[in-house]
């Protein structure tokens, strides 16, 4: 061979300095450390809350979840109304926001309006998510409640025989919280669902049209199912937001320690309970608040796991 093996291999040799290689290693450790730190932070919070809650857990056990007493005078606590209120207000929010959000997402992912108008509309919707929740709360008190109260009275008069509407609305209440939460999570659902719909490959759309599907058949039978996991992901993120939302809810829900089937009645949620009581609490009351916080934590966890299961089920086909 005319070419010397040395010359052949030369360009393949490592020519990076040890310093550069050490920098690489350091970078891996650094980013790994940051990732670990987040996990650690989560564990630290869970442990701290758990330790602080343990007196209440020992004293009240699972009864805490099913009874409705919150009495700092006798030092007896349980959080059923708050758990109930968290679930009802969040699901009421989903009930309102999912159809509307999905509808808007579909509208904005098709070519119904020219791109020139569409883009600003998408931007405006995303901007809705940037409004601070205290502003939503104020708006709820001064604008929404006066409107909803009259509307609610009308509904109570005509549909009062339904348990859901069986009390007369008196301003703040579960229904206001649900509606405010619905408005707050609407942009999350819309933005994520739209991204998922837009990401569906154009080939699938063409395939459906090519088989003689109408636009609606294509959207409902092909595009939405193909985007399903993304849409569910958005809904779950929104539900998590709704369950944890504190400020706006505290301002409009009425903060009454009761669980009434009527949406017009006042109620409270776990996070509104925490916000209202934490400043003046001490002893067992703090432990009970911590216990309630753990319940909220577990509720969100369950919702997320359920979502994963749903998405896996659907994606298997």
């Amino acid at each position, binding site marked *: 061979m005319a070419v010397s093996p040395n010359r052949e291999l030369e360009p393949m040799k490592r020519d990076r300095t040890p310093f550069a290689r050490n920098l690489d290693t350091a970078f891996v450790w650094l980013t790994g450390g940051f990732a670990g730190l987040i996990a650690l932070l989560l564990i630290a919070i869970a442990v701290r809350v758990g330790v602080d809650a343990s007196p209440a857990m020992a004293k009240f056990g699972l009864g805490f979840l099913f009874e409705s007493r919150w009495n700092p005078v006798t030092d007896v606590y349980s959080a059923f109304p708050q758990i109930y209120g968290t679930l009802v207000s969040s699901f009421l929010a989903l009930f309102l926001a999912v159809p509307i959000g999905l509808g808007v997402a579909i509208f904005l992912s098709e070519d119904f309006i020219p791109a020139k108008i569409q883009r600003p509309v998408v931007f405006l919707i995303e901007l809705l998510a940037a409004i601070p929740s205290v502003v939503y709360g104020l708006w709820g008190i001064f604008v929404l409640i006066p409107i909803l109260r009259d509307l609610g009275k009308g509904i109570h008069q005509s549909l009062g025989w339904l348990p859901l509407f069986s009390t007369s609305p008196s301003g703040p209440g579960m229904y206001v919280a649900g509606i405010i939460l619905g408005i707050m999570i609407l942009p999350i659902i819309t933005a994520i669902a739209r991204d998922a719909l837009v990401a569906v*490959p154009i080939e*699938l*759309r*063409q*395939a459906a049209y*090519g*088989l*003689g599907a109408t636009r609606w058949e294509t959207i409902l039978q092909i595009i939405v199912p193909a985007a399903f996991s993304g849409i569910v992901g958005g809904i779950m993120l929104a539900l998590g937001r709704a369950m944890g939302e504190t400020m706006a809810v505290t301002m409009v829900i009425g903060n009454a320690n009761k669980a009434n089937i009527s949406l017009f009645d006042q109620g409270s949620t776990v996070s509104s309970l925490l916000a209202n009581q934490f400043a003046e609490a001490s002893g067992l009351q703090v432990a009970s608040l911590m216990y309630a916080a753990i319940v909220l934590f577990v509720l969100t966890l369950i919702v997320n796991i359920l979502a994963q299961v749903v998405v896996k089920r659907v994606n298997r*086909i």
Partner: protein
Amino acid sequence: MATSTGVSTSTIISSKDANIYYGNFLAVRDVTIDIPKNSITAFIGPSGCGKSTVLRCFNRLNDLITSFKMRGSIHYHGQDLYSPEIDPVAVRRQIGMVFQKPNPFPKSIYDNIAFGPRLVKYRGNMDELVERSLRGAALWDEVKDKLRESGLALSGGQQQRLCIARAIAMQPDVILMDEPCAALDPISTLKVEDLLQELKEKYTIVIVTHNMQQASRASDYTAFFNVEQTERGRTGYIAECDRTEVIFQNPQQQATQAYVSGRFG
């Protein structure tokens, strides 16, 4: 433009002086061509000369593109495809399409086939129709035990035959194929070509291909598209259209000769 000579069969699609625009851009001009029934017509020519564009005009799939405009006429069984009374959705149910990239739905094999028939509320036995369509696409033996599995789990060649089966299930009149073998390996390509010969007994096929051997082997008629630079952009046109033997052995134009013998871009 030369029209088909020899064996005379009835014409199923007839395009006359069609000019096709995207916005102000004239993509293809003066498309005049007759597609004979129960035959395979191949569209060949360099990239960007408008083969896909013309193909998509035949089942009104171009309607999805907002900037699309067509002047001239395309008749299907003597009806003007672009007259306002025509429902494009109904057109696409009779003129099926197979795309370059296999595009099965993310559904089971069975549901992929059943999708179209369900749209038209097919009243017959769905299981039979699925089997018949899969047999028609020479896929039945490979998938008969896994009809409930995802269509996406099949190989590329199988996916493309699934897409052909899906088109057949609509019992169409015409099947348009836009480079159906472009993403397939040589063996799958041969399978699809064999399939074409069977399919033309029942259907009329128009196929776009970049593979000269495929055009000469598989088609009865060939249209050679070319493209020319004008002041308004690159506009495609049909340079020559005839029986496949004529195009490949005795073409009238130099450009055709150059293209089919491989001396062309």
